[in-house]
């Protein structure tokens, strides 16, 4: 798809959108601090913060040791005391040591202090597979965190959403886990409006309208779902694709509105099926819209294996594909 910059927008890929938004935040608010492994001198492994340390100094762009619990723990303290830290976990696979700081501390600060303290913290991390990343550079982590009240989780898929949602996450008074699918970093380009804007957290977006089936997705799989739905359009099969954008809070209204229209629901995500985001969506729709359903809800998700392997066939076995998604869509429409 050819994308051209217009008078009020610039074409960027997802990684450029993250970089531009972070740069703007650093420029506009001196309370903003970026910290993480290799974010300073190295300028982040995807060069997202390249040259930031030169411009903003090492007090605001902080290279940390390889100690994720400390990265988040320090950021929690900064946030409580008035700074606006943006912590980076270099790869989502490394987030586990900071689990206690995120779940036990950041998410509970407001509640624990009876509203006296908030924790305006953003934790950014690249996640997801399809990049030959194997055990330590492929994982999806959203389901591990979405059970936790007090924590918001955002997973944008397009550059314009990256900017609007990252701005909203930075403005938000509470902790936000900001997930960036690394396979989409340079793969996905799009027009990004110039100037400062936000997109509300917790609002999904219908990326493609349709009448016969609702597909809910996010991340890399959203793009594949759109590709599959586009393919089916040529077969006169009309599929609606809802980009979840925010995993928590979840936009129930958007999902229910779509399902009540199409009467069928397919959820596709890369993360494991068991206890995943799709499980919550399924349960919610079964509770709220059972009598609109004309087919069993279906989930097309990652298999229950510990990780995707390094060998290409193992990775391919783990990952779905636009073709597999198109098959699932056809079967559901035909049901």
């Amino acid at each position, binding site marked *: 798809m050819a994308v051209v910059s217009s008078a009020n927008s610039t074409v960027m890929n997802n990684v450029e959108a993250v970089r531009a938004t972070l740069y703007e935040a650093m420029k506009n608010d001196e309370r903003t601090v970026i910290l993480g492994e290799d974010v300073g001198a190295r300028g982040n492994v995807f060069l997202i913060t390249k040259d930031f340390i030169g411009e903003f100094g090492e007090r605001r762009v902080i290279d940390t040791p390889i100690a994720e619990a400390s990265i988040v723990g320090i950021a929690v303290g900064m946030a409580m005391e008035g700074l606006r830290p943006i912590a980076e976990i270099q790869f989502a696979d490394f987030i586990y040591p900071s689990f206690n700081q995120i779940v036990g501390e950041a998410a509970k600060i407001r509640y624990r202090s009876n509203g006296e303290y908030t924790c305006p913290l953003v934790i950014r991390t690249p996640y997801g597979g399809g990049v030959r990343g194997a055990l330590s550079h492929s994982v999806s982590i959203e389901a591990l965190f979405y059970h936790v009240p007090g924590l918001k989780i955002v997973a944008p898929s397009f550059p314009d959403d990256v900017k609007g949602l990252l701005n909203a996450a930075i403005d938000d008074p509470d902790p936000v886990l900001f997930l960036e699918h690394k396979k989409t970093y340079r793969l996905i380009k799009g027009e990004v409006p110039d100037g400062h804007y936000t997109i*509300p*957290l917790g609002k999904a977006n219908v990326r493609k309208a349709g009448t016969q089936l609702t597909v809910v997705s996010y991340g890399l799989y959203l793009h594949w779902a759109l590709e599959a739905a586009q393919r089916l359009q040529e077969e006169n099969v009309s599929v609606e694709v809802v980009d979840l954008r925010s995993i928590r809070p979840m936009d129930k209204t958007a999902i229910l509105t779509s399902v009540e229209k199409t009467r069928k629901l397919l959820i596709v995500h890369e993360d494991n099926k068991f206890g995943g985001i799709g499980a919550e969506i399924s349960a919610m729709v079964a509770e709220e819209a059972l*009598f*609109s*359903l*004309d087919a069993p809800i279906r989930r097309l998700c990652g298999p229950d294996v510990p990780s995707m392997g390094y060998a290409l066939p193992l990775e391919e076995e783990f990952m779905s594909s636009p073709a597999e998604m198109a098959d699932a869509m056809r079967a559901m429409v*035909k*049901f």
Partner: protein
Amino acid sequence: MATTITMPQLGETVTEGTVAQWLKSVGDSVDKYEDFVEVSTDKVNAGVPSPVTGTIRELLVKEGETVATGTPIAVIDEAGAAKTALTAAPAATAASAAAAAPVAAAPPAPAVSSPNGAPAAAGVESESALRGASPAVRRLAREHRIDIRAIKGSGSNGRVTADDVLAAVTAAPSAAVTRTSTYAQPIPGSTVTLTQARRIIAERMVESKRTAPHAWSMVEIDVTDVWSWRVREKDRFERESGYKLTLLPFFIRAVVESLAAFPLMNARFVPASGSGQPSIYVNGEVNIGIAIGLATNLVVPVIRRADKLSIKGIALAAGELIEKARKGKLGVDDLAGGTFTVNNNGANGSWASAPIINGGQAGIVTMEAVVKKVVVRDDDSLAIRRMMNSCLSLDHRVVDGYVASGFLADLKQRLERMGPQGDL
């Protein structure tokens, strides 16, 4: 063994209930915990689950009939004991159901399609057709009174799809059209049967107008600052709570403060009874009813102890009640205990209204449309301001114009002092 079912008590203060709709007919099988009748009380509808698995032997109360709680309403033959009755039933039931269907008047009796489960009278073939029917198909068939078994399915293995049902409705409109007119879609020249809720509203309105001498007053309020405050907070509020932030919670906050200053407005007139002299009871709690208009009726759910809530607290409580009201999920407790009522009447542009007091209260106050006006300020300058009228109906037995105008003036002052920023 036969089990007699009695009218349940739905809510602490409820003494009677109306059979709104039988979900089962005589001869139908019913599962334990399956709803077999819908009972309505004062604005609350609830399905009543069967305590046993069995077959309906007798329905003792007609639809629309109101009986005291504890009155027997149905007899169910428990499964096992009912075997002989069950085998005897099919022919008779099927015949009578088919005969009854075309003339079945008011209630949407699902006698033919029986989407609630495999009917005892249905044969093997129909059961398999019904077994594959999705929840959407069953619902659509019930709504349009279509027999699923009469439709040719286009889905996999001949399954009847939701689209098939809708196509059948369009193909045979005469079969779907009923001669009854409903409140939601009244047909000119027909009689609309009152719903339980409509009947109660009618009774209450007459009662209030007859017993409480209504007097009326109106003030014009400058809401420019409180409006700006709302606009400043609304996106964040909606993002955090999922509810829209309207002017209502700000208004209610001002109302409860004014009620604290004028407690007689939060009171009710107690008429003479027996040897008791008439009196005025000044309520201890401030529970604000909010009038919500729905397509078919009006509900007034109550924000309890509204005086103890911040604007944000009121907004959350109101948001929840409004959502429940729209989904028809208000419970008995949501509707009870109101001491004063607020009617947000201005959404459609109304500029003044004379509301009827909710029985047992001293007053009701409205929010009319917010409009930009050119106003002359105290220093003779002209300004464009957002203005809103607020109308008060009062029970003249409880208060006089003196208290009522004091209350309105106080309310006006409080609202004009609110905003343009601060903590909600």
